[in-house]
């Protein structure tokens, strides 16, 4: 079959919320169903909450960002029909995003290797030219020999691990700087 070049990416710009989470952006007459808002209701598993902010190279929170989530259910099974897909927009004043979901199960990859439970995350905002793929693992539910984490130098691995606290899990995404998050070419 003919090989076609992929369409070039362009930044989502500052108004991605209009297109992807219009009710959140304040559009009064939005869609009958807003996608990505029912992760927890759609998936079997233990409820968890992950909070964080996207931080730019100046140390400021990104206020116009969007985090997309893709994950299996608590048993490690991926579903269709939008189940397992979530969207967590950055709050317009604080930049905080909140992911209300269930603890994903471990995933067996094609070699039979077990991957520790994780959320796939995709980050877009003004100033991000190509959407950024990363992952969130969980501080109390991660194996030392996870095949993906093992590929990353130990000092940077921590950027992918949501820390459990009294208020759920916490994970900031650093676009630049000392704690720049590990992003993936996948």
């Amino acid at each position, binding site marked *: 079959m003919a090989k076609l070049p992929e369409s070039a990416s*362009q930044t989502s*710009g500052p108004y991605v919320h209009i297109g992807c989470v219009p009710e959140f952006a304040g559009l009064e007459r939005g869609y009958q169903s807003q996608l990505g808002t029912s992760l927890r209701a759609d998936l079997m598993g233990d409820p968890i909450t992950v909070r964080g902010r996207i931080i730019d190279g100046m140390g400021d929170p990104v206020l116009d960002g969007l985090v997309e989530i893709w994950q299996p259910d608590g048993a490690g099974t991926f579903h269709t029909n939008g189940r397992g897909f979530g969207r967590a927009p950055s709050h317009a004043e604080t930049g905080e995003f909140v992911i209300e979901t269930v603890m994903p199960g471990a995933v067996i990859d094609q070699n039979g290797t077990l991957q520790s439970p994780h959320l796939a995350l995709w980050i877009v905002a003004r100033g991000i030219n190509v959407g950024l793929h990363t992952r969130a693992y969980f501080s109390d539910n991660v194996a030392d020999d996870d095949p993906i984490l093992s590929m990353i130098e130990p000092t940077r691995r921590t950027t992918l691990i949501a820390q459990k606290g009294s208020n759920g899990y916490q994970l900031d995404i650093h676009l630049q700087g000392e704690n720049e998050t590990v992003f993936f070419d996948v």
Partner: protein
Amino acid sequence: MSKLTDIAPRDFSLHPPRIAPDYRSSLSRGPIHKPIGFATTMTEATGPTFGHDVLGPNDHDLLINHAVDGGSAIGPRIMVHGVLSDGDGRPVPNALIEVWQANAGGRYRHKKDAYLAPLDPNFGGCGRVITGEDGSYSFRTVQPGAYPWPNGGNDWRPAHIHFSVFGMAFSQRLITQMYFEGDPHIALCPIAQSIPDAAAIDRLTARLDMEATVPMDIRAFRFDIVLRGRGATLFENQLEGT
């Protein structure tokens, strides 16, 4: 266990660099480290798909989907259509495409957009469609206006429509922008010109399509979209169809 679908490696020469200095926002938001690659796993080879039942009856018609009392948005009426395919030339059916844009005056319906051009009470600026079995899609809207933006100079965005596209795999996820044939602002725009390949910019430029233009009604623009290719192998266990 059967083989996973492989995702074709991304050709970064077709995409903007993470930091494009003429586009100032990317200076502090583009990561410095090179992204880490690894062989496709279940997580990236799968992805969200949506049924046609998520769509409302007017989601594909921005002329009226935010209008009040039988009104319609102000501006040049256009229909945008095309085919979504993957890098192997296969149409991508049943894929969600979301669009958003400024109104005909170049103003977004957003509390942080304070441009002089007025809001249009009958225009919201977002819409969505799901591709047909042949990968085709179409929606109706008004042609958006150019607008100025803060980038350190006298910068104006070319008229554009933002596209958010889902494929079959999460790693195919794409956000891009569609431009209009003949717009002199394309050559002046730091965001469009952040793409290092002139042909790639041209492929983001929709063409007037007189064949699909409806006489005395609405002009058509053609815009085809290509996602990364996938191997032919279908998914195996751990993906539950519903």
